[in-house]
């Protein structure tokens, strides 16, 4: 979707806008105060409370969702910018009565304690594994010109944007490693 008058979602005089975007494959239309972040729109307006508000400043990762397939921190995105775009939250990672392989691995490896960071960890890991498939390097990749192998050091670096207050890190790494190996 390129810009252009026809794609405008708002007249300039208003502090609120109508916006339509897909959430977990369903089109949602909302009239929102322009100040509403994607995180608040999901939680307060759409009843999707999976994404969590830890810090509200981009520092903890508990609000991570997928935007057009890329992992982002939803607390730093104004929902008004999202017209025509597509969001997947933890609720959309698998059907209502099933677990994705990644979710099943988190359960099997005991990759959480309180669980507050888990939806963000899951969405982040999902996006991260796709980045690896695309051959993206990380800060700990030795050779930038060849695709990285997903070592534990790579997993830790790539998941550095997700903090876990309960320090379930070793189990999170194990769950992600198992999912990656099984793919």
């Amino acid at each position, binding site marked *: 979707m390129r810009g252009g008058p026809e794609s405008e979602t708002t007249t300039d005089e208003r502090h609120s806008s109508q916006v339509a975007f897909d959430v977990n494959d369903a089109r949602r239309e909302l009239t929102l105060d322009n100040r509403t972040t994607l995180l608040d729109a999901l939680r307060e307006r759409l009843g999707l409370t999976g994404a969590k508000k830890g810090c509200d400043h981009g520092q903890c990762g508990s609000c991570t969702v997928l935007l057009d397939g890329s992992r982002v*921190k939803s607390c730093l995105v*104004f929902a008004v910018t999202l017209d025509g775009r597509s969001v997947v939250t933890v609720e959309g990672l698998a059907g209502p009565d099933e677990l994705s392989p990644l979710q099943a691995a988190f359960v099997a490896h005991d990759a959480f304690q309180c669980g507050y960071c888990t939806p963000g960890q899951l969405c982040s890991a999902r996006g991260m594994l796709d980045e690896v498939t*695309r051959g993206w390097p990380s800060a700990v990749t030795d050779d*930038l010109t060849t695709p990285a192998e997903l070592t534990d050091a790579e997993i830790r670096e790539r998941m550095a944007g997700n903090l876990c207050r309960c320090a379930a890190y070793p189990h999170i790494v194990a769950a992600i490693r198992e999912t990656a190996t099984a793919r």
Partner: protein
Amino acid sequence: MRPFRYHRPAGVAEAVAVLAAEPQAAYLAGGTNLVDLMKLGVQRPDLLVDVTRLPLDAVEELPGGGLRIGATVRNSDLAAHPVVRRDYPVLARALLAAASGQLRNLATTGGNLLQRTRCVYFQDTGKACNKREPGSGCAARHGQNRDLAVLDWSDLCVATHPSDLAVALAALDAVVEVHEPDGPRDVPLAALHRSPGEHPERETTLARGALITAVRLPHLPAARRSAYLKVRDRASFAFAVGSVAAVLDLDGDVVRDVRLAYGAVAHRPWRAYRAEEELRGRPFSPQLAARAADAELAEARPLRHNGFKLPLTRAITVRALTELAEGTPAP
């Protein structure tokens, strides 16, 4: 947060015209800095002009060599670009060492260069800060200033520029393409950011309403041997306590060409011209690299809590250059 209007411009000229006509408007790109500062009440725009759908998202190879990077190219896409990884590793490394995967997927080239300082007093509207509120004083000058400047600060402001990307681009002699109300213009990256001087609230040399449209990298074959070394308080996901971007071109063991830039030492990315001069034309040794860093830092004036930045910057200069000289750059 102050209520604001939202506008999605149809093109570059319109975006610039809207900003010129609206004194309290701001461009919104990835939002990773602006949205944060709006929540904190540090920035209070009444209109956001969203630039992310402008056609500025391409990375193009230039005919004579070199690269043009669109202003809205995401930091993650730029770091993953095959030409950047092969020809400008210092740039890929600087990007990968910054923020987190989720933030790099949002953060843009233009927004990264114009992100604001991480000075904690700047971010706290309850504290005196000449940058946020000219004339109010500087709480950092005699406060907690461990993370702040050692070079080129003024009594009015001792903040540092936080971008890693900007340090790499300074070393690469990048050129920033901007569109100002008067028309388009090229600005060398080294001339984009200002020293704080008497006006810390003015951070760049750009006209009000200027839109960054692209960043151009020159053809620089020597950059294939380049590195970015960043020191942080934790292993990942933290701003630099010190950093160096380095390009080294050796003829045998003699330094034919070298580019060095420092992060976390000044109000702008710090191109270390004096150190480069010390190095050029001499046989490389770690001792020479240390002397070069000392020459660059001779004018440094550390604050109460950040004297450590001088030996730190010297040490990372020696390590980055020595590893490049030995052909084994560490990640």
